[in-house]
């Protein structure tokens, strides 16, 4: 039985893309403590991505490496959820500038971490021993990310009129992107069949319970979903991923194999 590499790339790309996004707050956090918190969350995510890329490189063999996978693939080869590549603000075209909105950052981290504690927890029993080992570490880290995001979600939702309005707008903007969690891509289907992945569909009631509980405590409402379901995990991305990768990959591409 072979481990479906595309599924590992999906997990790795999720982590590296959100890690890169959150790192944008480094030096720009709304307060010093949050600047440090987001940098630490990013370090965890990038660490998880490195372990997963190393596992992929090991399975692929040849000259595959974590750096090649992170820095020398283009946007259409990335398998992350579209949710994770969006900028830290409401809907705008890719080249438009806007102030970063911390409510957007927090809501995204909350929605993603609530999913990933469940995914990592299940993956501890993966048929791929390498992935199971990574999952056992990641579940502990992700539960701290979830606590952090949930605390701020409640604090802002149940805060001032301004903070409530902003965090509700972020929930309304981002919640539709979570529909992508619940569709099964070919890579996920193959990995579930090989007992390497967990079936995300089975995690949905637990995710809903965590999300509804937090939104209720934060005095926020959950929007009804109707419309387009994004397909980042099969390589069909928003216009934002190219900009993110251009920044993340430019140094490695300008100085291939550079060491310092």
């Amino acid at each position: 039985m072979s481990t479906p590499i595309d599924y590992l790339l999906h997990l790795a790309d999720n982590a590296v893309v959100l890690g890169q996004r959150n790192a944008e707050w480094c030096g720009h956090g709304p307060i010093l403590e949050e600047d440090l918190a987001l940098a630490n969350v990013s370090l965890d995510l990038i660490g998880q991505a490195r372990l997963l890329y190393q596992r992929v490189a090991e399975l692929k063999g040849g000259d595959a490496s974590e750096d090649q996978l992170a820095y020398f693939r283009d946007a259409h080869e990335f398998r992350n959820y579209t949710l994770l590549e969006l900028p830290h603000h409401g809907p705008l075209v890719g080249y438009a500038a806007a102030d970063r909105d911390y409510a957007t950052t927090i809501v995204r981290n909350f929605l993603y971490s609530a999913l990933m504690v469940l995914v990592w927890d299940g993956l501890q029993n993966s048929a791929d021993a390498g992935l199971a080992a990574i999952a056992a570490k990641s579940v502990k880290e992700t539960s701290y990310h979830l606590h952090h995001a949930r605390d701020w979600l409640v604090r802002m939702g149940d805060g001032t009129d301004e903070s409530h309005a902003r965090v509700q707008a972020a929930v309304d903007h981002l919640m539709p992107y979570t529909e992508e969690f619940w569709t099964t891509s070919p890579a996920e289907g193959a990995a579930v069949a090989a007992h390497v992945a967990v079936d995300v569909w089975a995690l949905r009631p637990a995710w809903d319970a965590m999300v509804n509980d937090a939104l209720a405590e934060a005095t926020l409402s959950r929007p009804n979903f109707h419309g387009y379901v994004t397909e980042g995990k099969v390589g069909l991305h928003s216009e934002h991923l190219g900009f993110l990768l251009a920044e993340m990959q430019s140094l490695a591409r300008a100085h291939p194999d550079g060491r310092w």
Partner: protein
Amino acid sequence: MSTATERVWAALEALTDPEIPVVTLRELGILREVNDAPDGLEVVITPTYSGCPAMGQIEDDVRARLAELGVAARVVTRLSPPWTTDWMSDAAKAKLHAYGIAPPHTRPAPDVSVMRFIKRPAADVVSCPHCGSSRTVVTSQFGSTACKALYKCLDCQEPFDYFKPY
């Protein structure tokens, strides 16, 4: 234990954590094993947090110490079983406390309910390492590093780091 592995243990015993120089890698549970494998000596280390930036330094320190000793041994990073703060020795916890870092609590017993990921342990009282007061509050879940949270003491008013259970 062979003489060769004993020599390596003795040499690596003194290596400390680059971020928290009062505790050794062995006390933190990062330095796991020294094995006399058929194809040579092997030193096993395990990472703390996946993204801990000190891991590269730790591996370099281990290699440098082995080179100093003139021992040819490979350094292997192993993820499983995953590192946990429960491996930290009582001596290490006492040293952290003396250094001004509140040592980690033992992790609570596993819970299987759906909401386990967002529930807080009931007795999560962290005592101030400066004055011993239990009247403390969290300032931030993430302190100077991912492994620590930032707390404040309501009695002596001092801020301090808490090494989080992992």
